[in-house]
């Protein structure tokens, strides 16, 4: 014991040295890989080395940080200095989507995408000013713990756990899905295998050491992800503008983009009606939705349990505040760089892709077309490859012309080939069929040009030049392709993959811990077996962690489109469900148990109703609330038209008519035009009002409770909880 604690205080005293050596080691490793690349080692091996090495390091940290103490497991012994907790929070916060997708969102949405940049940073002001220091003083292990103590009992705790799980679970599934996607893209691993490899990477970092292990791996992951994010774009800025500060240099790119936009319209490459000028605000989101989104993301940030619980680990209340400031600083480094990625990519696409001859598109286009992420007039190399295989199978089975391919595949029961074939457009089908009949060994690359020409002609473009409408780019490509666009060696692409993986793994770790701790501490220890000894509590915590992780990984491996789309709901659900109860719990002494219970149910309930109603029951939602809908007359007329079409449709056309009807209904099913990603705009005030009214209608909290709140408000003195139990009974 004595040796362990002295080794540990040695570690804490030398954090700067430890992570300094680690960062140096990581950079040396990157240089080592670069040398291997020059020596001719194949890219695939380099990719494995990159990912394998970084995961090995995280695993070693995870194993070295194993612990048998409850307080170490749940709150890292409350010994994490503000600066390092800031880094850990940065990694905890920045997900696969922030790392890989954010720049792509900005690329696609221009100014309107900045709502995400603002929303995902400004929330930390609320965390520091309203919540984190007070929760730290209270000394809980989990967020529901605070609700239970403040609002006297397990009902509030239980509701807190429900909100926590509903906002964290879809989120963790998306992270594990992200690890699978990155590993399968860069390493060529099978997606399902990649998902379970990611699961192993997550478990080894969190299971043995709980919060303590997660903290120290997250610091390591932050360093990898920020180096990986900044490197390519810094090099790109240096190459193109001679100054290694992309965040300042993309101002020029913004000017060039605007100039190029009007040029493209003049030369007919883009239609004036469809081109959204990059820096013009409120083209995708109207003003109401832009500001509603910012508010919901900010308040959601301040309510997400996996973020709040990071501030339970600092040595003091003072450090909790400093730590929020450091967190935001470390997050800021990535978020203020993302717009420069987007601007450079936009300029590259507008100058070197749009307007080019269809036969001379840049190399990176075909790289990502191979992965199905870049489409030229709807054509990808990936789809062509599978189309060729399908035609090969059909010809072998006796298909004699284009028209009989589908029927032949159908009769042979080749369903996946049939699906691949059907996904091709009609003009492309003819190209593929003729090519395969002439030469059975033809490659997708060889027929790419004829295929895009055929598709372009079918789309009405006979100029041989790529128009803006003919290009579609997946959001993820922006960050992933920058190394290639800048003409950098593969080592940089491998670095980006390692960074994306670090972002996904670190967020998944934090979320899993939040869910598993709520189940083991709040449900098991506080509601099922209040006398459980320490060893059993820790065993239960670990078993639940593994179970939740496996369920999440299994869900991710099925590629659930619905769940992935629900991730953006997490912010609104957390905001509406938890924010009023947490904030009023600290700032309003009169808030009581019934106010909190009704407030959580009302806020969370309305938010959930709006989310599910507008998305899954759009028709009936619109019909119930048509008076509040923000739809214009044309949209309403179309709604009625599609409804009549669906009602009058023949039985076999019913499903297709319903689909068209329901899809349109989703655009009119709303209150005042608010998009469902911002549903907390209704849930949040509902939660506050319900809590306020019900609290005033019921009995004021006891004198002991009022004293308890005073205690939370003063940094001085001991925590009010110890080992997960209240020191004095406040009820």
């Amino acid at each position: 014991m004595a040796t362990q604690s002295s080794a540990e205080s040695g570690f804490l005293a030398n954090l700067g040295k430890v992570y300094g050596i680690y960062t140096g080691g990581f950079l040396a490793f990157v240089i080592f890989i670069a040398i291997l690349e020059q020596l001719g080692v194949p890219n695939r091996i380099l990719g494995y080395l990159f990912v394998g090495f970084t995961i090995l390091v995280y695993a070693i940290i995870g194993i070295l940080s194993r612990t048998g103490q409850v307080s170490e497991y749940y709150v890292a012994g409350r010994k994490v200095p503000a600066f390092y907790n800031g880094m850990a929070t940065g990694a905890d916060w920045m997900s696969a989507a922030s790392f890989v997708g954010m720049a792509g969102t900005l690329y696609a949405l221009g100014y309107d995408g900045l709502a995400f940049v603002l929303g995902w940073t400004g929330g930390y002001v609320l965390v520091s000013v309203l919540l984190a220091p007070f929760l730290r003083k209270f000394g809980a292990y989990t967020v529901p713990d605070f609700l239970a103590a403040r609002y006297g009992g397990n009902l509030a705790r239980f509701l807190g756990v429900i909100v926590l799980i509903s906002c964290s679970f879809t989120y963790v599934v998306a992270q594990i899905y992200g690890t699978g996607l990155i590993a399968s893209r860069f390493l060529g691993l099978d997606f399902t295998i990649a998902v379970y490899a990611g699961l192993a990477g997550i478990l080894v970092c969190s299971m043995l050491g709980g919060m303590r292990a997660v903290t120290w791996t997250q610091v390591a992951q932050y360093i990898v992800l920020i180096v990986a994010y900044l490197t390519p774009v810094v090099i790109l800025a240096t190459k193109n503008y001679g100054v290694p500060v992309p965040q300042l240099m993309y101002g020029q790119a913004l000017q060039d983009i605007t100039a190029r936009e009007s040029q493209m319209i003049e030369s007919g490459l883009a239609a004036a009606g469809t081109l959204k000028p990059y820096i013009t605000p409120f083209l995708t989101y109207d003003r109401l939705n832009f500001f509603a989104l910012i508010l919901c993301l900010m308040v959601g940030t301040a309510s997400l349990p996996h973020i709040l619980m990071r501030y339970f680990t600092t040595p003091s209340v003072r450090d909790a505040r400093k730590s929020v400031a450091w967190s935001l600083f470390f997050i800021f480094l990535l978020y203020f760089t993302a717009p420069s990625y987007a601007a450079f990519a936009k300029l590259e696409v507008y100058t070197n892709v749009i307007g080019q001859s269809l036969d001379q598109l840049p190399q990176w286009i075909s790289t990502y077309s191979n992965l199905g992420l870049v489409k030229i007039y709807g054509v990808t190399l990936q789809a062509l490859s599978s189309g060729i295989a399908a035609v090969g199978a059909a010809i072998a089975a006796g298909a004699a012309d284009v028209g009989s391919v589908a029927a032949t595949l159908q009769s042979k029961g080749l369903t996946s080939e049939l699906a691949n074939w059907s996904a091709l457009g009609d003009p492309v089908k003819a190209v593929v069929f003729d090519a395969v009949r002439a030469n059975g060994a033809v490659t997708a690359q060889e027929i790419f040009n004829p295929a895009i020409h055929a598709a372009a002609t079918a789309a009405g473009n006979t100029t041989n030049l790529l128009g803006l409408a003919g290009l579609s780019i997946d959001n993820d490509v922006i960050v992933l392709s920058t190394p290639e666009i800048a003409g950098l060696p593969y080592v940089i692409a491998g670095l980006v993959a390692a960074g994306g993986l670090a972002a996904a793994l670190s967020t998944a770790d934090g979320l899993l811990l939040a869910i598993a701790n709520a189940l083991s501490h709040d449900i098991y220890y506080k509601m099922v077996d209040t006398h459980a000894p320490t060893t059993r509590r820790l065993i239960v915590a670990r078993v639940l962690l593994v179970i939740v992780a496996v369920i999440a990984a299994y869900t991710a491996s099925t590629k659930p489109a619905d769940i992935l789309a629900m991730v953006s709901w997490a912010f609104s659900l957390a905001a509406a469900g938890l924010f009023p109860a947490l904030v009023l719990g600290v700032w309003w002494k009169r808030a009581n148990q019934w106010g909190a219970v009704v407030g959580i149910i009302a806020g969370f309930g309305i938010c959930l109703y709006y989310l599910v109603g507008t998305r899954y029951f759009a028709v009936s939602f619109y019909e119930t609330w048509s008076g509040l809908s923000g739809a214009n007359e044309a949209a309403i007329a179309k709604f009625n038209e599609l409804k009549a079409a669906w009602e009058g449709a023949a039985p076999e056309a019913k499903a297709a008519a319903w689909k068209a009807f329901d899809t349109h209904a989703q655009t009119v099913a709303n209150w005042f035009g608010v998009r469902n990603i911002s549903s907390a705009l209704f849930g949040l005030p509902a939660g506050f009002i319900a809590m306020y009214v019900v609290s005033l209608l019921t009995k004021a909290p006891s004198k002991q409770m009022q004293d308890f709140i005073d205690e939370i408000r003063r940094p001085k003195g001991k925590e009010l909880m110890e080992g997960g139990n209240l020191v004095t009974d406040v009820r």
Partner: protein
Amino acid sequence: MAQVNAEGHWKATSHLMWIALAIWAFFSFVIHFFVNSLNEIVILGFPLGYYMAAQGSLIVFVVLLFWFARRQDSIDREFGVAEEE
């Protein structure tokens, strides 16, 4: 050691809270209402309205949080409720 003054401490803390939230609200929302007018001003190629949403407000948030941490700490010390170092 300053005398403990819980009431004064909470008053000063609340006051600071409102200041911080006012700055937060201004840079989260109010300034972006004027994006179109601000975009008329261009610095280093950046239209100012775009710049504020992409960087300006973020920088304000970071500085605000470091300032807030210091300010709150000195309030805690002034009213004798700060933690021991």
